[in-house]
């Protein structure tokens, strides 16, 4: 058995005892619950402060989107994007990186504009 520092022993021992206590179903007292609520309120205030600070300076780019795409519903946007993604003989599939489930309508419109513009250019080159 190797010689172990008593402070290390106490460290592991109190950690194990703490973990066992954490796993127990003991309900907090009223005072402890108040401490918990205070801490949750503090954390939420800080999270909100960070969120507000995050909103202020946002880098944006302005994209031109054709009126016909702006007029499309979300379902129509998704259907057209899927149609283009599956179009054979093009490299459009590589551009369909946006996940519709996590995209706003604005994102979808920009994505479709990218694809339609690319198609337009391909069409012009083919003429």
């Amino acid at each position, binding site marked *: 058995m190797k010689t172990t520092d008593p402070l290390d022993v106490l460290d592991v021992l109190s*950690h194990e005892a703490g973990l066992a206590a954490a796993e127990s179903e003991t309900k907090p007292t009223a005072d402890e619950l108040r401490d918990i609520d205070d801490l949750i309120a503090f954390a939420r205030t800080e999270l909100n402060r960070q969120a507000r600070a995050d909103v202020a300076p946002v880098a944006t780019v302005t994209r031109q989107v054709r009126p016909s795409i702006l007029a499309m519903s979300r379902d129509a946007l998704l259907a057209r994007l899927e149609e283009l993604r599956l179009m054979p003989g093009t490299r459009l599939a590589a551009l369909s990186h946006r996940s519709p489930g996590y995209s706003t309508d604005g994102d979808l419109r920009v994505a479709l504009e990218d694809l339609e513009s690319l198609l337009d250019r391909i069409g012009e080159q083919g003429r």
Partner: protein
Amino acid sequence: MSIHVVRDPERAGRMAWRAAFDKQLTREVMAKVQRYARKRAALLVRAGVLEKRHAPRELMHEAVRATLAGEATWDPSAVALDKHLIGVIRWQTRNMERRRAKYQERSLNDSGEDTSTDGHRLENEVTLAYPPASIAPTAALRAAAQRVTAEIRPLAQGDSDVLRILDAIEAGADHGELIKEAGLRPAKYRNARRRLARITERLSDDTHAAVSEAIA
């Protein structure tokens, strides 16, 4: 017509992090962390390693603050918030007397060294947040810690699983190695650990008084 598009993936990452924190910030999770902090602090205060003013409330507050400030890095995809906060509290309270010594050393020889890693940053933060009221001699603290752990063993007599855990700890096993070193199945280990936690509640007040006297 044009559309303004947010192009800031880092911001999206921060938003996701905050959403994960907020989701796990429940009474249930915090009560778990509180039970850990209470038990851990009680034992360390009894041994004189931790000063009484470091109550569970303060330890939890510091762990949450350090996490929100990014000083204690939390990866929501790797570990649950309660486990992370428990880890931070353990770190904060680990070998407090050595940190006090380090603080004193740093005060005397402030080299302005780069402390860019999270661990160092957190250590500095915690150490500086809790400046020493007095520097207790390390040898006395060791003796006090030994006294507390020595008192647990007789209370565990007859409980072979708890004794195996104590043997493994005294042989130098840390949390992740205990099950293997103690040679217990996970369920038996958890039950024995629960009994060990109950045993610590039976430590006599005499021990506390003796410890206080030893490090006074």
